[in-house]
């Protein structure tokens, strides 16, 4: 296809868009809403994924101990645990040390200002040989309820986040599929209006020997423009919403590894843009194929 034909297409397309401007705006808005949801789900899923991975990757069990235990008893318990198969190491974490390191890790929170007494108990950090032993070891240590106040291990949290993520993914993707279908439906009808408005031109084009591809071209571009405009609006809004939301989240939950790197975000926003373009062109293709057959 030469430059001439491309210019011709673009001119035709603009005429088409202008002629059904209200429908076009509605179509663009629908695509935007659909893709904002798509983008949000992708962002939330990606973050949950990362959090789950992060938690699960730590093959550790943290035992928070009852207060008022003496250090000797704790050390005895520690050596007992260390002898168990599947446990690589058990580290005693003195609460004073833990509090200091926590404060220095999150120095930007100015913890000292609000909390004067050390809120952390002593704890033991169990390092495992592999993930497969985790269940039996948890069962075993649960028996020492006179010593242990609370057991925290990544696996359990990761499992719970994972279940949540799956439920959300199923619900989210079904909703998104529905919205994509709705967008397609609206684009098909928007383009159909243009096809009908240009019926006379199309039949004359056919009479002077235009190929179907040539006739469909401007409509596909019209769909592409609707899709890309809708997607651009949603990427703009997503960027705005996510920057604000992630800023707040990082402040509230600084220990979670939220996604902030450009590569992941560009991937998601790029996916949203490509989805927009695809939905637009697919809608146009369906519309124009059906209308041209009816002639």
């Amino acid at each position, binding site marked *: *296809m030469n430059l*001439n034909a491309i210019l011709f297409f673009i001119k035709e397309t603009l005429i088409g868009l202008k002629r059904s401007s209200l429908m076009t705006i509605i179509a663009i808005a629908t695509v935007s809403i659909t893709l904002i949801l798509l983008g949000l789900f992708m962002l939330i899923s990606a973050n949950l994924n990362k959090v789950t991975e992060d938690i699960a990757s730590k093959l550790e069990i943290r035992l928070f101990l009852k207060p008022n235990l003496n250090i000797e008893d704790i050390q005895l318990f520690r050596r007992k645990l260390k002898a168990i198969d599947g446990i690589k190491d058990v580290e005693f974490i003195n609460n004073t040390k833990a509090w200091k390191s926590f404060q220095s890790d999150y120095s930007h929170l100015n913890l000292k200002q609000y909390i004067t007494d050390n809120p952390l108990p002593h704890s033991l950090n169990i390092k495992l040989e592999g993930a497969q032993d985790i269940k039996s070891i948890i069962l075993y240590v649960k028996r020492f309820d006179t010593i242990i106040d609370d057991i925290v291990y990544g696996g359990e949290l990761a499992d719970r986040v994972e279940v949540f993520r799956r439920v959300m993914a199923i619900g989210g993707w079904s909703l998104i599929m529905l919205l994509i279908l709705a967008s397609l439906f609206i684009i098909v009808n928007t383009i159909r209006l243009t096809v009908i408005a240009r019926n006379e031109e199309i039949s*004359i*084009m*056919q*009479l002077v*020997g235009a*190929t*179907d591809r*040539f006739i469909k071209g401007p409509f596909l571009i019209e769909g592409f423009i609707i899709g890309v405009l809708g997607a651009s609006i949603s990427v703009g809004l997503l960027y705005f919403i996510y920057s604000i939301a992630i800023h707040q989240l990082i402040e509230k939950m600084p220990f979670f590894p939220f996604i902030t790197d450009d590569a992941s975000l560009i991937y998601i926003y790029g996916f949203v843009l490509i989805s927009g373009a695809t939905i637009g062109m697919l809608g146009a293709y369906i519309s124009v194929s059906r209308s041209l057959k009816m002639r």
Partner: protein
Amino acid sequence: MISFKNVVKEYPNGFNALNGVTMAIPENEFVYLIGPSGAGKSTILRLIFMEEQVTSGEIIIDKYVLGHLNDAQVPFYRRNIGMIFQDYKLLPRRTVYENVAFALHVMHVPSKKIKQQVSYALDLVGLSGKSSHYPRELSGGEQQKICIARAIVNQPSILLCDEPTGNLDPETSWEIVHLLTKINAHNTTVIMATHDTEIVDGIPKRVIAVNKGKLARDQVLGTYIE
């Protein structure tokens, strides 16, 4: 070369518009297609232009056996054939120039060549002065000339004309027919369906008469009435 072999055309409603038409029209011929209303003249032109398909029989146009062409080939086949219509079929929102250039755009002709060919075609029909006008600003005769310019702008080998003078006054009708004979002289086969007695008798050419879907008469340098 246009050749019809036992062509039957039955429309979807069951009406038989053509009942076995056999004829041959060599290259560069000028043919009047005459006959009463409903005889099947437009049907013959529509079959040649592939707006309709034969029910049985065979039509061969130059190297094309029409029944063997698939949908994707039709546009390319049509580029060898110009068609002018009684109702002109011009695009109202485009200028005269754009209406003619449109036919070339559709064939991906480069801009520079489009300019050349369009001005040649508009010159030929004598309307280069009105190239930036819109169809509604032109008389019926002028619109018909634009339609002719569009039909011949890519130099087709066959020009089909369905009552090209049907809506025009006698003087303009003569202009149009003179134009068609001029185009015919430039190596284009012209088939003109008409009811115009004066023209058929005034510029004698081959006459093919149809009646009720059958060939009634085929006469070299014929007249309107036998």
